[in-house]
């Protein structure tokens, strides 16, 4: 797993490449904790995310809860069909804000 961060329109974008599973999720958790400490608008770039298991979903749920409590927002974009399928099965597609593209995720709409 590789994680990189950038900003666009005062949104902190975190790109996660590879997998979010039981092996890699602690690292993703640590990286997201660092971003969440300093940012309220966060977007996750999943363009290069290969697959996600429940360990990865737990990290996302934790981040969503933290941002919701602090009045921030969490948006996701670039999900491949397999990641989207996991989101639909788990119900995460209805509780997290998923956008098709980065432009839509960092826009005001």
């Amino acid at each position, binding site marked *: 797993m590789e994680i990189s961060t950038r900003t666009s329109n005062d949104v902190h974008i975190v790109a996660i490449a590879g997998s979010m599973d039981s092996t890699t999720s602690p690292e993703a958790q640590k990286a997201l904790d660092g971003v969440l400490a300093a940012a309220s608008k966060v977007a996750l770039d999943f363009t290069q995310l290969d*697959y996600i*298991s429940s360990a990865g979903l737990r990290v996302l749920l934790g981040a969503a809860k933290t941002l919701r409590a602090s009045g921030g927002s969490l948006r996701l974009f670039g999900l491949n069909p397999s990641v989207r399928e996991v989101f639909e099965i788990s119900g995460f597609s209805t509780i997290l804000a998923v956008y098709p593209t980065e432009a839509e995720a960092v826009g005001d709409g």
Partner: protein
Amino acid sequence: MRHGFELCVGVDPDGVGKANAAFAGFAEAHAIPAGVRRSMNVALDELLANELSHGNAGRQAGSLTVGMELDQERVVLTLTSEGPPFDPLRRAAPDTTLPVDKRPVGGLGLHLVRELMDEVRYERRNGQNVLVLVKLLAGGQQNDQVEAG
């Protein structure tokens, strides 16, 4: 043509990583469609993480085995472990309709496995717990087409 591999992960704390690496090489060598491979990656992670964190009390090293088999139609993952009879699939499905702040953390893994696989079954065989997961290759090809479009 039939291909496959078998890997003993025992009580190795990095058993999940080793199984992932073995499966990644196998999937690449046999050009398993991305959608099928990813579903298998998720199932493998859920079951091994579950086994290695909860199911290994008193287990002897080498008694957890991951088997993978591929033919023209399907990929079959077999997870064999020693220990008292235990069927993880009997655990109830979580409520996925709850809002984000009402959700208990976790409990989703086996639900994902059941939904992502085409067939999942538990058997007690020769004093061992055997989980068999089947994913048809046809579903994965469809998944790839969606991605290309």
